[in-house]
């Protein structure tokens, strides 16, 4: 029997003394074992999780437990955890153990969350199917022949298959929202700079965010409010105070909602996704909210802008993996140059190499202005358009993805088709605004569909409240 499907369940069971943290951890450990073939976990911290569980149990009995006591969390393999291995699903970081813990994870631990293990993902967060991983592919529990989405595929499946209560992912261009859509979960990308990036192995610094997977909105909101906020280790993180999202979930206003013609009318959009999205918009109108169609002529520039800027940053961020200081070093080098070349050729996977080359190209002196400078300008236009729209409207609604989960290998030989998977999610990433994906029914094959809602920067509280409201009124799910 499935248990502990929400943190509320867990808390009630703990309060009623029906269970303790140790039993909860053991329950998840059992599930992880049973569903090991899904390949969601790269490493399970069995001993340290049980040890932590005992400590939290003691705290609970002495009445000193933090607000996440009883919550069991898996973390994506790009968030470092002191004295634990972190590989970013790459061979190049084989054997690397971090000497410190990422701020996001530390804050969860400080509130007595239990970290149960690290989760598979696309190498350095680069991918939309979790097929680019040195740890192998992750199976979607809804259909094991299909991808779970990426790059945070392991994080999605871990919650989908009930291997932990919630999980952390990272979202640079849709890496939380797209797998959340593919697995029928709630997944948020917060405002850029809302959560400290200290301890997040960088892919593209000016896009990277840490997000949360959960089965429901309240759990997601609670985890986010614990992680977010100022941090001395990250000079780019926002100093804005963090509202208690989990206590602000009541929604009773009349919302102004925009939907974008170019997304809903996109030829790439799967029919059932369109109809389910339209159904939500109709329902909103029915409930008396203002719903309007808006043109977004820049949509076609969003993906190129995203790929130029993220690959540029990635090409530089990944320069440190050179075999000199840590991680993988080729055994076949005969001089410095061959050490660099072989270490990096052997250590990185195909997609990472493709993006490093692309990024190096767009930053090279002869092409800098044509690509990087221009993409920076277009980014500003997209950001201004989006923020402007989000001052006129409270929310933008669109599908999270053009299709539901596809089969393994379906896009393997066509990187551009794979990049199109991010078509709807990159707008929020390029603009920096928060965006959430919530379940919106299933397609004919029974595969989950995601609905994406965006709000203006730092409006996570409003976004969570509206997402919960949508979940409550939605007849698709």
């Amino acid at each position, binding site marked *: 029997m499935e248990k502990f499907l929400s943190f509320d369940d867990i808390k009630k069971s703990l309060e009623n003394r029906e269970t303790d943290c140790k039993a909860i951890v053991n329950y998840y450990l059992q599930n992880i074992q049973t569903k090991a073939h899904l390949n969601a976990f790269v490493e399970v911290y069995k001993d340290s999780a049980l040890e932590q569980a005992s400590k939290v149990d003691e705290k609970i009995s002495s009445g000193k437990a933090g607000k996440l006591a009883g919550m069991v969390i898996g973390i994506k393999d790009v*968030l*470092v955890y002191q004295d634990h291995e*972190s590989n*970013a699903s790459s061979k190049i*970081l084989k054997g*690397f153990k*971090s*000497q*410190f813990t*990422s701020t996001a994870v530390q804050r969860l631990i400080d509130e007595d969350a239990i970290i149960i293990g690290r989760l598979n993902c696309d190498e350095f967060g680069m991918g939309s199917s979790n097929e680019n991983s040195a740890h192998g592919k992750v199976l979607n529990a809804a259909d094991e022949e299909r991808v779970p989405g990426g790059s945070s595929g392991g994080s999605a499946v871990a919650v989908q298959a009930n291997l932990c209560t919630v999980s952390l992912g990272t979202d640079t261009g849709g890496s939380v929202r797209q797998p959340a859509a593919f697995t029928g979960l709630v997944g948020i990308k917060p405002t850029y700079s809302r959560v400290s*990036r*200290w*301890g*997040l*192995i*960088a892919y*593209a*610094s*000016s896009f990277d965010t840490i997000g949360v997977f959960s089965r429901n909105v309240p759990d997601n909101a609670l985890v986010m409010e614990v992680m977010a906020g100022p941090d*001395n*280790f*990250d*000079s*780019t993180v926002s100093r804005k105070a963090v509202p208690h999202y989990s206590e602000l979930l009541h929604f009773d206003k009349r919302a102004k909602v925009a939907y974008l013609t170019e997304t809903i009318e996109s030829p790439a959009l799967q029919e059932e996704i369109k109809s389910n999205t339209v159904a939500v918009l109709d329902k909103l109108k029915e409930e008396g909210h203002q719903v309007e169609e808006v043109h977004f002529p820049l949509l076609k520039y969003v993906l190129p802008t995203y790929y130029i800027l993220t690959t*540029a*940053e990635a*090409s*530089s961020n*990944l*320069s*440190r*993996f*050179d075999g*000199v*200081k*840590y991680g993988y070093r080729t055994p076949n080098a005969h001089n*410095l140059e061959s050490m*660099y070349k072989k270490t990096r050729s052997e250590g990185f996977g195909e997609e990472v190499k493709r993006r490093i080359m692309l990024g*190096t190209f767009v*930053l*090279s*002196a002869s092409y*800098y202005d044509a690509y*990087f400078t221009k993409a920076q300008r277009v980014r500003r236009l997209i950001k201004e358009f989006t923020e402007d729209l989000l001052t006129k409207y409270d929310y933008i609604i669109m599908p999270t993805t053009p299709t539901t989960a596809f089969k393994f290998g379906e896009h393997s030989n066509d990187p551009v088709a794979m990049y199109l998977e991010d078509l709807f999610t990159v707008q929020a990433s390029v603009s920096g605004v928060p965006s959430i994906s919530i379940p919106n029914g299933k397609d004919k094959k029974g595969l989950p569909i995601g609905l994406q809602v965006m709000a203006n920067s730092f409006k996570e509280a409003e976004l969570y409240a509206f997402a919960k409201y949508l979940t409550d009124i939605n007849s698709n799910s």
Partner: protein
Amino acid sequence: MLSAKIKDKYELVVGLEVHAQLLTKSKMYATDSTEFGNMPNTQVSVLTLGHPGTLPKVNRRAVEFAIKMGLACNSTITRKNIFARKNYFYPDLPKGYQITQDKGPICVGGEVPVTLSDGSKRSIALTRIHMEEDAGKSMHLAGEVDTLVDFNRAGVPLIEIVSEPDIRSSEEAYAYLVEIKKLVKYLDICDGNMEEGSLRCDANISVMLKGAKEYGKKVEVKNMNSFRNVARAIEHEFERQVAMVEEGVEIISETRTFDAATGLTASMRTKEDLNDYRYFPEPDLSPVVVSEEWLESIKVAMPSLPRELHHKFVNEFGLPEYDAGVLTDSKEIARYFEKLCKKTKNYKAASNWMMGPVKSYLNELTLHIEDFPVTPEQLAALIALIDEGKVNFSVASQKIYPELLKNANKSPLQIAQELNLIQESDEGSLKPIVESVLAENEAKVAEYKSGKKGLMGMFMGQVMKKSQGKADPKVATKLLSEILDN
């Protein structure tokens, strides 16, 4: 060697890039210590080593130091500072990029005034001063096949001071570097030690026909570890490049290295081999904004600059340019002198003391002025003793001063009294001495009176001898004249 006539057709054009290592306690973007000379890889946090997940954080002290240098050079201070990544692979560069500034350096423009040996003055224009981090050090140990890397220096803050191609002679280059070193030391932002690498200089050198509108192709010269070698490298390059132009050989843009043993430069790499550094704005650092308040607080804390002190010494104290130059050579000497001048108004005497007895004592024992045992108050008191006629300069410098150096707790007057050196200027007590000298030398007195006026000195000598050097020469001369010339 080229003839002077040929060389005279050409003009030398030099721009200098000076890296100054800042004297902050911690690194540019990390909290590791910057202390020099510790065991390798003992000042290396996860940040310095570029571990995944780390993020830089700007050291505000380093920003202040850069601003101080900019203020000292009359540069415009940039209010919103954006950092940039300079990407290249090298084992001593842990992140695979250096965090520096590209567009929008902290200090824009500015100038460094220099004085040449013929007394002429020039101002060398600056392009920019920007902040960046140092790299580690590759080490090739004897008997060791592998190259080892020490990351202690990685991340130590630097400023790079870039001049315009404004320098026209090796002497100007030398004077410019002396001035830069003086400035960073006055500002306490760098120890200015070129041999230890805390001050490093690269030179961009080209030649053109006099009056030409376009510069020649520039050659970058590296690895000059002293000011003298920078001047030598420039002289050599001028000769080499002029000879090439004369022979019709094209000069190529390249990086050359200077060999101090031979005084020659040799090609290191041509521009074609150069890295494309792929600069782009550093996304891991939020811009550092220099607020009005912050800038004001830095301005208030600025020490007096050498040129301000020079101006003060010449215009307020009425000292010769030469004196002002010597006295402002180091901040410590200038500070001592300023204190001294608070206690005495005889500025020229004070300057003479500083440049004479004080300097020779320091030089002899290779001491710094901070270790000088005599306080400005004591030195002022000694000058006062001379001014009041209580002792003369030679007694002061040869008898009291050495004693003062040994017994710094005594006052000059005390020493003069103890050694019985106070001048006799009382006519009543000097008169018997004068009279007895003249009485003992009747023959000479007669010669004097018959016109041999030069004997006056001999009488003076006798009076001084009899008074054991204490006779006030002015009073003694007056008494001698009164008797002899009547």
